[in-house]
């Protein structure tokens, strides 16, 4: 792994106050400034000495020196800087926010709970991660400048919403700096009105004639004053234009042609690049530049592999020495990237000259990355090269680990890409994995669709496929989704248990499914055995979530037998398994709540109910038995607390779930008995916070953002009317008259964090 600048956290336990996945440290530092870069002293002075507005936006087209300005500020200032160079891959909120957390943590250690939420696959971004990170930023003890460079590449709405929330948590004396080609995703008009934002635009970033003269001088071009003035006028002080002109002049071009007017117009620059700059350099150099432009990051060995050319590393080193268009990513001179503007142009040129070579180059890059321990980069190059086979193999390998790192967007994007290209049929594991991820994300429709693709593969053809691994996983998926009732689930779970054993795959999941299936088919003793197996396997492989679920199920079985001593013991094991670091497992909530009630600790029981409320929206009919079982158990707790409104809300959801999945065995009878009991109970029927429905609980975290109701509606695929009605219902149940009041009250109750 010496070739890469990926940071590994080997030896550092997951969730222990650090990121769950590998980071590129180069993204966490300003790019290194070369000697001779024009100093933007006047703007830096304005930033350092001007009025301390908490938000700074730097917005200009490419080539205006946004990054240069901020790097120089970071070098010049004694203040602490936390830096994140944002790129396309950061369109996963947990990835982006991990980088931000890591950047802040490097300045001053931040609350480890931020990393816990970031590393947990099922933590809510607006509900947990953003509030924790916001509060970490707010409580930094000394001023910090948090720079996010290239924010224009962020199109993910959760990422954009997160930035607007972070902007509200900048403590006095600190700064949040957002730089990019387009206006940052903040409520700019309001920030302007409140005088909280300093906006730096192209007008501020253009070079003065004196700065232009200095740039040309440093680039080794000697021109008279009039010539400099003319060049400055033509380029409108656009630094990239001036620099390209300098390169051109240095190569022996004429001043008249160098001074074409292209103040900031990409298209004209592109034409200029094509007709002048690239035309003047050697064929070899041109081939090197355009072909390596397919690379996101360049290193000598990677360039050699992609170009199949010995000595490419030396060319890269030479280029890095002489050319400002290559940005160094580390201090060892191993990794570089092209300046964005330059790369776009080179790629356009490659597209024009050798389009058929592009996928070939990308495949070579993928192959090199695979051999050098960079599977995710290999996957991205395979996707770009439309190399479906390699991509499918890499997705099979990377999908679940990535999901368990807490990153949801990337696996979904990969799977969607494969699906769009019809790859799922030929790669059954892809469909199986997609089914698992959809189920765990609580998306039943998607999960069902994938399960059908798997069924089609297994049973749709005339011959039965011969792929025991995929078949064992397919059986596990079928059991997990329980689409065809308890008996079928039992058969599928048994098949999965045997299949995994035959293949020596050690996984607690099939045992858990087997246990649940046995509960549903009225075999509690058999179920307990399966759950015991699940506990052993989960302990063996260190699967905390599975361990907590298996222990919870055993405790519930003991409660049903009225063996409270054992139930309490198992509940205390559940408690231990979900502490340090904190794990919020929905199935554990009713267990811990019922155990608390049993020992008369009502506040502890209520606390578990609140956690269960936070987690409940995820429990959909994608995993129908958990969705129903947890609600039934929670209903018992609400009844014990004489909260009829809360109990009824849960039972209504149980009824809805059973309509969709009626074959849930013993749970059907339990629900019916509870319904009868509910009709005769006395207690409070005033709908308060406990009566918030799953749909309202899903909306609640989004009320913390600055998204409007229609925008929230778009996020949740609901109409504005529905959102408005749910919001009003939330306000009433929380007894508040406004959205901000609801957020405050929900925080007090523990329904929201922060």
């Amino acid at each position: 792994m010496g070739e890469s600048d990926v940071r590994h956290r080997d030896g550092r336990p997951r969730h222990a106050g650090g990121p769950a996945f590998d980071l590129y440290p180069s993204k966490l530092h300003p790019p290194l400034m070369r000697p001779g870069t024009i100093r933007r002293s006047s703007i830096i002075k304005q930033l350092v000495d001007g009025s301390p507005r908490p938000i700074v936006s730097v917005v200009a087209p490419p080539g205006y020196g946004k990054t240069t300005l901020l790097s120089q500020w970071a070098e010049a200032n004694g203040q602490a800087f936390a830096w994140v160079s944002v790129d396309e891959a950061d369109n996963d909120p947990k990835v982006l926010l991990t980088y931000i957390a890591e950047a802040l943590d490097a300045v001053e250690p931040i609350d480890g709970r931020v990393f816990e939420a970031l590393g947990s696959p099922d933590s809510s971004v607006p509900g947990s991660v953003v509030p924790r990170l916001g509060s970490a930023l707010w409580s930094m003890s000394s001023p910090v400048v948090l720079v996010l460079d290239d924010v224009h590449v962020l199109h993910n709405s959760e990422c954009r919403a997160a930035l607007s929330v972070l902007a509200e948590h900048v403590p006095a004396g600190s700064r949040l700096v957002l730089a990019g080609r387009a206006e940052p995703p903040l409520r700019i008009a309001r920030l302007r009105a409140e005088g909280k934002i300093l906006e730096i635009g192209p007008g501020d970033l253009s070079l003065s004639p004196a700065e232009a003269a200095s740039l040309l001088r440093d680039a080794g071009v000697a021109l008279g004053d009039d010539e400099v003035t003319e060049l400055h006028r033509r380029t409108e002080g656009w630094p990239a234009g001036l620099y390209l002109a300098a390169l051109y002049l240095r190569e022996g071009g004429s001043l008249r042609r160098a001074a074409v007017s292209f103040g900031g117009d990409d298209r004209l620059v592109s034409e200029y690049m094509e007709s002048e700059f690239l035309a003047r350099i050697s064929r070899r150099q041109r081939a090197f530049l355009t072909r390596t432009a397919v690379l996101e990051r360049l290193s000598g060995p990677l360039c050699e592999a992609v170009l199949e050319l010995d000595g490419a590393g030396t060319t890269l080193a030479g280029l890095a020495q002489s050319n400002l268009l290559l940005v160094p990513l580390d201090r060892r001179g191993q990794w570089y990237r092209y300046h964005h503007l330059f790369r776009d142009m080179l790629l356009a040129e490659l597209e024009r000259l050798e389009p058929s070579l592009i996928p070939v180059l990308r495949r070579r890059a993928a192959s090199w990355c695979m051999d050098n321990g960079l599977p995710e980069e290999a996957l991205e190059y395979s996707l770009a090269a439309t190399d479906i086979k390699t991509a499918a193999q890499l997705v099979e390998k990377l999908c679940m680990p990535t999901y368990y790192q807490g990153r949801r967007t990337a696996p979904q994007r990969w799977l969607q890409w494969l699906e769009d290209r019809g790859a799922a049929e030929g790669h059954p594991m892809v469909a199986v994995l997609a089914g698992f991820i959809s189920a765990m994300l609580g998306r039943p429709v998607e999960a069902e669709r994938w399960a059908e693709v798997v069924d089609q593969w297994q049973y749709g053809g005339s011959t039965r496929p011969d792929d025991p691994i995929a078949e064992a996983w397919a059986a596990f998926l079928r059991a997990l989704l329980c689409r065809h009732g308890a008996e079928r689930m039992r058969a599928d779970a048994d098949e999965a248990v045997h299949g995994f054993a035959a293949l020596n795959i050690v996984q607690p999941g099939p045992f858990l499914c087997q246990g649940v299936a046995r509960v549903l088919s009225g075999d509690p003793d058999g179920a307990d055995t399966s759950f015991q197996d699940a506990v052993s396997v989960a302990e063996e492989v260190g699967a905390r979530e599975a361990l907590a679920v298996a222990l919870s199920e055993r405790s519930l079985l003991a409660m049903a037998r009225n063996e409270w001593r054992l139930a309490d013991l198992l509940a205390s094991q559940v408690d231990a398994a979900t502490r340090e670091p904190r794990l919020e497992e929905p199935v554990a909530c009713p267990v811990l709540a019922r155990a608390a009630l049993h020992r008369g600790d009502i506040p502890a029981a209520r606390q578990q109910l609140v956690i269960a409320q936070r987690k409940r929206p995820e429990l959909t009919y994608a995993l129908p038995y958990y969705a129903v079982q947890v609600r039934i158990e929670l209903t018992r707790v609400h009844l014990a607390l004489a909260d009829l409104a809360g109990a009824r809300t849960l039972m209504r959801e149980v009824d809805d779930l059973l309509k969709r999945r009626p074959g849930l065995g013993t749970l059907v009878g339990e629900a019916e008995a509870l319904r009868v009991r509910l009709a005769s109970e006395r207690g409070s029927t005033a709908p308060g916070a406990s009566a918030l429905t799953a749909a309202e609980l899903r909306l609640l975290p989004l009320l913390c953002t600055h998204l409007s109701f229609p925008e929230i509606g778009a996020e949740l695929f609901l109409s504005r009317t529905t959102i408005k009605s749910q919001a009003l219902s939330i306000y009433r149940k929380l007894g508040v008259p406004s959205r901000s009041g609801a957020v405050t009250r929900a925080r007090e109750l523990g329904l929201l964090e922060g």
Partner: protein
Amino acid sequence: MVGFRETLRGLAMIDEGFVKDQAGIGLGLAGISALDAKTAALLQLAASVAIGAPGVSLEWGAGLALAAGASEDEIAEVLLAIAPVAGLGRVVAAAPDLGIALGYDIAAELEDPDDC
């Protein structure tokens, strides 16, 4: 003194605490003992529909009825039960708002191209 904004907002969203404190109207079912809570809540809802109360009143009333133990089916049948007395116009007008209160957006569903 409560400002006009608070007054209008408190009324527009039926903020029960506000209505009780400022308008002196207790919205609970205190004093009703012969009727059970569910029946009383369904009656309130029926009356709201009959007088052409706005959507927010129906959403509020439906929320109370659900918490008092009424099912969605029972709430929908309130419309059928009072149609002969209140008139078709009133119950037709109430249906979409009641749908919203029960998490069923009729307008959105009618618009949905994927609904088959």
